[in-house]
């Protein structure tokens, strides 16, 4: 199995733990990732709100590269990138003016894009392409007794629920269960993490973050599993401020790929787990499968 | 060909039970669409004799649209199936005779699909407008231009012999 790989800025910066865990896990499962040559910023949400057409051009360049170099399945772990690239894909087909803008711009760089690239999310690939049974075979340290709150965030399932239900996604639930973890019922799995509001309007943003953590704690979660760098950062980085405002809600938040890594028997350091502000407790040795 | 005042003229043969009713529904719903289509009502699309379609083109239609019930929904069980069979061959025939594919169209539109009447008509009018006039009467005239004047020349070439009455005989 071979995919093009679009890390985006987060996975090289704040969210590098995501990449650090994603790459070995994929390799371990025999999935080959080819990092997109000369990829650029996806445009994220900010650019979109300034100039949609230009933002589309920015994103489309990445799609075009993938289409040219192949494989045309483009693995995109960061939720923001995933959404933006998907949205661009849609906009190019749905809005002629955006299409022309994109083609004109790409043309000046002697590039073309005919729309063949598929933007894929690691969850999608792992569960639907690789398959849970294959993953199960690789599990050497089942996460028995580890209570995990599956947290998807908003961008991967809305507005384009390409591979899962937009209100009650379950792919990560299945995946974590396969790793042996105890997946708790977590009704906020697609609620807002506070997004960029945590920085701009903390009292609004952090409150949302707090609700997520508090509910996870209330339901006895040992850890929150996330699939998005921004979510991970919001849920991990602001505990002091949250505690000052509303009281404690200390639950660690890690990437689902890190949990996979653990289950596959990789040492925590190799998975970037040391980067957490709120560290995840070592899996007690008695949980180690014989 | 680039006549700016030119408006496509499209003849539509609609079946009484589905497509004609759908067109009525479009009216009742006050949907707006291009005024270039003239509908001729038949009881069933199965009544559409290929001659009708050719005659329409030969008389100056720029396109012909046939509308019937969806396959399986025909008010007469399967009149529309026969229409489809004829139409598929007719398309090949017309292609061989140089009539562009988009000038003749067969659509299944049920009685409730007033909106589809609009979209199909608008779409087809655009396509035919893009193709330009078919104007067969005009083409026939152009073809025949190569003959004009000849008869007169023939007469001129002859020694003038007025017919004498009585010489005409008949057994």
């Amino acid at each position: 199995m071979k995919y093009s790989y679009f890390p985006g800025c987060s996975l090289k910066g704040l969210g590098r733990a995501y990449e650090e865990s994603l790459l070995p896990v994929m390799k371990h499962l025999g999935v080959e990732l080819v990092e997109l040559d000369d990829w650029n910023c996806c445009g994220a949400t900010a650019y979109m709100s300034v100039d949609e057409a230009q933002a589309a051009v920015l994103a489309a360049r990445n799609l075009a590269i993938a289409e040219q170099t192949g494989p045309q399945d483009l693995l995109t772990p960061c939720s923001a990138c995933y959404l933006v690239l998907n949205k661009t894909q849609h906009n190019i087909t749905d809005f002629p003016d955006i299409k022309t803008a994109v083609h004109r711009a790409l043309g000046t760089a002697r590039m073309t894009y005919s729309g063949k690239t598929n933007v894929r999310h690691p969850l999608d690939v792992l569960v639907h392409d690789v398959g849970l049974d294959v993953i199960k075979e690789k599990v050497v340290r089942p996460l028995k007794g580890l209570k995990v709150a599956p947290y998807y965030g908003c961008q991967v399932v809305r507005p384009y629920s390409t591979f899962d239900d937009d209100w009650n996604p379950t792919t990560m639930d299945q995946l974590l269960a396969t790793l042996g973890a105890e997946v708790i019922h977590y009704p906020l799995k697609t609620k807002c993490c506070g997004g960029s509001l945590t920085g701009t309007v903390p009292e609004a943003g952090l409150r949302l973050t707090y609700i997520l953590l508090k509910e996870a704690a209330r339901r006895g979660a040992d850890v929150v599993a996330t699939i998005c760098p921004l979510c991970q950062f919001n849920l991990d980085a602001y505990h002091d401020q949250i505690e000052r405002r509303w009281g404690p809600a200390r639950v660690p938040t890690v990437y689902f790929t890190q949990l996979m890594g653990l289950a596959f028997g990789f040492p925590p350091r190799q998975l970037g787990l040391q980067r957490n502000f709120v560290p995840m407790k070592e899996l007690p040795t008695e949980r180690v499968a014989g | 060909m680039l006549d700016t005042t030119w408006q496509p003229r499209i003849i539509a043969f609609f079946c009484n039970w589905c497509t004609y009713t759908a067109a009525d529904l479009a009216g009742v719903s006050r949907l707006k669409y291009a005024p270039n289509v003239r509908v001729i009502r038949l009881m069933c699309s199965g009544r559409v004799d290929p001659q009708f379609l050719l005659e329409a083109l030969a008389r100056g239609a720029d396109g012909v649209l046939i509308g019937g019930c969806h396959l399986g929904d025909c008010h007469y069980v399967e009149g529309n199936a026969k229409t489809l069979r004829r139409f598929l061959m007719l398309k090949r025939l017309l292609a061989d005779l140089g009539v562009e594919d988009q000038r003749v169209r067969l659509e299944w539109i049920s009685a409730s699909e007033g909106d589809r009447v609009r979209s199909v008509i608008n779409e087809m009018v655009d396509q035919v407008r893009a193709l330009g006039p078919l104007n067969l009467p005009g083409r026939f005239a152009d073809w025949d231009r190569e003959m004009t004047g000849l008869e007169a020349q023939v007469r001129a070439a002859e020694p003038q012999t007025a017919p004498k009455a009585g010489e005409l005989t008949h057994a």
Partner: protein
Amino acid sequence: MNSNGNNGDLRIGFYICHCGHNIAGVVDCPAVAQHIAKLPGVVVSRDYKYMCSDPGQELIAQDIREHRLNRVVVASCSPLLHEHTFRNAVAAGGLNPFFFQMVNIREHDSWVHTDVGAATAKAKALAQAAIRRVRFHRALEMTRVPIHPDVLVVGGGITGIHAALTMANGGKKVFLVEREPSIGGHMAKFDKTFPTLDCAACILTPKMSAVRAHENITLWTYSDVVKVEGYVGNYTVTVRRKPRYVKEDLCVGCQECIAACVFKEPKFPDEFNVGLGKRKPIYIPFPQAVPQVVLVDPERCIQVRTGKCKQTCLEACADRQALDFTQKEQLVEIKVGNIILATGFKLFDAKRIPQYGYGLYPNVVTSLELERLVTSSGPTGGEIVLKDGRHPKSVGFILCVGSRDMKTNRWCSRTCCMHSMKLAQLVREHTGADATVFYMDIRAPGKGCEEFYDKSLKEGIQFVRGRVAEVTDWALAPEEEGKLVIRVEDTLAGFVRRIPVDMIVLAVGMEPHADAQEVRRLFNMSCGTEGWFLEKHPKLAPVSTFTDGVFIAGCCQGPKDIPDSIAQAGAAAAEAMALIDKGYIEQEPNTANVMEEHCSGCKSCIPLCPFTAISFDAPSQKARINEALCKGCGTCVAACPSGSIRQNLFEDEEIFGEIEGVLADA
């Protein structure tokens, strides 16, 4: 008198209708009239405000007499609407009504175009077409088809029941076919009915037993229609009767067999109680079921499945010998003249809106489930209880679940507002719990319904205006612990609220049955895009369909409450009886006929007729069309390779005339 119309000179009268502003607003009617006046054969050409009005019609008749017209063309609305009107006017003038042609310049022109120039040009072209066409018209007579007096009613809900009884009381023989084991439909599952709060069973049960008792009604439950052939007045219908493994004529409904069943306790989900209750493999759907006949569930019954059961039921039935495990499905063929479809609706599956947590949270129930809980005959004996047996202290009612929603169904299900208010009142009455109704608009247009709304307000039911965002069990505040929380933007208060409750009732909307498409095909009619059966005209023919002799009533045509369904049932019954009592139906004389002298007997046409109206006549070696069987589709006419079949009203020359006319430069 020129009633044969073919006396040489052509004398056409042309009339264009303004239809108030409907046509004249967009089409320059006088201009069209002037244009047509110049065409050969046109003797009079007028524009008039309302041609369908009495004076309008009289105008035609008068002109026919005064100007010796032998052809009439009217340009106005759709022929499907007023063709018969003007044919009568033409006849009134002493001319054969088929020397008339109608031009549709309203539905097909003024209503769908805005540009006056283009619309007027189109009107002229269409009018020209008709002028050229009528030239070839011939004098014709309506054909008469006899009507078989018996009627088939499909669906034994309140609508079907009422239609059947109405006609049976009128002395008509009625076949009532219901696919469930008992008639009664949804109404039988209701406790009380809005807005009068009278008990559903009390008003339904008598009608159900009346059906069973009626000498003119043949009731076939646990049966469905599998084949329909023929046409108005002469339908041949095949009904499949599924095996009950019980002889209906012998079973007296004593239910001793049920008691004796080897399954001591009921253990299978009971359909009638929407899964809230349990039943045995041999069961009777519900106490008041009609017919009072038990049936065996082949999926569950050991004897049917394995043939290895003690068959204690047989002993219990003893010498009545009503049970019969050898029963097979049987097909019965009946002949009827008319068919009334009252196949009803299915409820929206609340699981399709996951954010409301149905199926995830046990105490989120549908309105019908609550209905069963409220009913004394229900699984809890009328006690409203939560899954853990506690009584709810607070109940939230969410409206428009699967209605007025672009994501699921766009239409309003019309009954949910009232139904939910009724349930809210019952909940307060039975448990004293707080009841809060979450609504977008309260729609209470029916008689006594607005008053019922007021009553609900007076009885302290809370109303929160806003579409509920989600139902969840995550608690922010202590008072939310262990409750279901409704998150909703209160659009009157203007902020987002979180309202904790014990039980949530989803007012699920109505949907067409999953098999609506197959059913409509079976009966050769149309469905609207949403899947409700399509009426012939939304206002003028609400229970008729485009297939003569097939009528629709109740919720299969669209969501309705009980009064409206009953009204439609009556209407459909009346329509059917009108046909039956008339004894025949007049049909368009648009049949095809073979020109004997020209037919070469090539037989190409014969297989094309789905009604087997065409046969090969051995003596003459030519094709022959049985006009009684011909439905007038014209497929054979188009197919005759030597042009030797013609169709009345749609002659080749008439169509060619239209083509020429419509393309002649206006």
